[in-house]
């Protein structure tokens, strides 16, 4: 499904290398967790997967379903099934959330050669998905993310994910900013989307999220590389001992 091969990437503006020879394979249906200290390059990796222009891939490749996505722009990647739930979703004044959702859903349908959604069908889909995530429809009348609380923004990200039904879901610290109940709601939402042909890359600092969304594999990202991989027990080990030992071993 996803194969990242010896990826090197730098900040386009100043040439600082952030991703330094990263290798990672995620199989179809797999939930892979990525952990790692602050500043190790987790969000950068997620942005590069989504195609953000601020980063430049200098070598290596990203294969999605066997094909390189490096030449695709963010919209093409999304239409082919990549979704990023942002660590910090931006507030976009003037663009009503519902308009945005409809535009995004129809753009992806169009890219796949499907018919556009009729408004009543669209509203029905949003109501259903919002209900499952305890999102108030009134909130969706507001401009996109504007004035949403931290937790509401994260829920809105998962709502978009549910509506766009991507094949690869990258969740960047979706658990941060969520209260205990919201964490459960959001995790249930994610678990409900777990499927044979849908993979997840779950970036988190805490074992707590991984109790709800149980991963198939856990990877430690440090200074732009995966320095250790294991099963869910690796997360428990990190929770107990911190990163020092693993970093020491890798050095």
């Amino acid at each position: 499904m996803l194969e990242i091969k010896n990826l090197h990437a730098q900040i386009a503006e100043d040439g600082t290398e952030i991703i330094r020879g990263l290798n990672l394979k995620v199989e179809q249906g797999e939930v892979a967790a990525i952990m790692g200290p602050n500043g190790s390059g987790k969000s950068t990796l997620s942005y590069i997967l989504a195609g953000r222009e601020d980063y430049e891939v200098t070598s290596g490749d990203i294969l999605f379903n066997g094909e390189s996505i490096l030449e695709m722009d963010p919209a093409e990647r999304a239409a082919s099934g990549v979704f990023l739930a942002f660590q910090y979703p931006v507030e976009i004044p003037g663009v009503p959330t519902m308009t945005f959702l409809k535009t995004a859903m129809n753009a992806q349908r169009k890219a796949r050669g499907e018919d556009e959604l009729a408004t009543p069908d669209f509203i029905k889909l949003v109501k259903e998905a919002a209900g499952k995530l305890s999102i108030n429809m009134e909130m969706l009348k507001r401009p996109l993310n504007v004035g949403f609380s931290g937790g509401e923004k994260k829920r809105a990200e998962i709502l978009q994910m549910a509506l766009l039904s991507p094949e690869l879901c990258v969740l960047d610290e979706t658990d941060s900013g969520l209260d205990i109940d919201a964490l459960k709601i959001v995790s249930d939402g994610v678990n409900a989307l777990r499927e044979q042909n849908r993979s997840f890359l779950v970036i988190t600092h805490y074992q707590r999220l991984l109790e709800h969304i149980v991963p198939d594999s856990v990877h430690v990202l440090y200074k732009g590389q995966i320095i250790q991989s294991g099963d869910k027990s690796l997360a428990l080990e990190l929770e107990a001992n911190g990163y020092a030992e693993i970093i020491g071993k890798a050095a």
Partner: protein
Amino acid sequence: MVTPKSLAKQRKAGKVMSVVSIAKLTEAEEMLFSAYDERAEKSSQSDAAIAVLKANGLPTRRVESWHYTDLRSVLKNVPAEVGEAVSGKVDTLVGNASLLALDALSNHEKADFRFDDAIGQLNGAFATSGSSLNVGAGEKLESPKEIQNAVEGKAAHTTHTVSFADKSSGTVIERQLGEGGFATSVTNLKIGNEAEVSYIIVQGKGVEATHLGQINVTLGADANFTLFVLNTGGKLVRQEIRINVAGEGSDFQLRGVNLIGDGQHIDVTMDLCHNVPNTTSEEIIRNVVTGKGKGVFQGRIAVAQIAQKTDAKMACNTLLLSDEGDFSTKPELEIFADDVACGHGATFTDLEPSYLFYLMSRGIPEKEARALLIKGFVDEIVEDLDHEALEEAIVSIIDSWLDQNG
């Protein structure tokens, strides 16, 4: 203020230059002056108006308020034929609006002519028709009234007179239409005490048109007035907004959207005078410039010495979407009172890359994502109208502009 009488006095005193002092008339000036000379129907007022214009010529960049729109050099030629503006060729902007007729001007309406600037002079010299509306005391207009001012190919000049008596309310839509030609259109609007009025100017002319508009407003006590101006068309456009806040406790709101495409020059110039204590005003102008479009917003706020507790805010935000486009903004605060809150701000930006990335990361192609952001930038202002049908109509004009220019 220049009246025919004061003009005669000035001329006697040698203060008004004579025609010969203009070195050489431009083609447009020649056309205008000879069109006037050939006019069958003249009056002492129209004579007075053309006299000032002949004396001074069209304004150049050396005239401060015309600094960014050098009319004398940009007004290349004027259609020789002077005709009449027409109304009723298109549907009203909103379904339930009723159309006001364009009629010959009465002497009473002509008495409102102001010749203190080029638009007033041109209009005073040539205007023969216009719409008029008088809303009586306490009367509440259930649905909007619409003025249509369509000019095709020829020159046409109109003066519209609207008054809202005390405690009346309503919405008036003024549409500037037509594919080409040269038009001046002056609106004189009187708003009585405690009246609530919305006035919407929608200028959507063809790309060959020259349009010189002016609205003169007097605002009574405790009145609420919202003026919305949308400019999407025209090759050379100037809309002047002159507000005399003359009644205590009144509020003036201006919302302006200028969508400026390649080859267009759109100038909005506001002169707002807070002349009495305890009044408020807020102006928000949003501009989008593409291609080699050129735009201007001049906003002057004058607060008289007695106008204590004035609260006036002005903001002008511009999305410059092309390196070849240009927008000039000149705020001017002239404050003579000491207990006031006045502020202004201007921003110039391109589309925010992080917004664009967010939208595209959801599968929205770049062109569509850009359009969504541009639309968001201006739609925010339209929402302030608080009139659903009107908002929809205006948003759909904006959408079709974006389809063509975005």
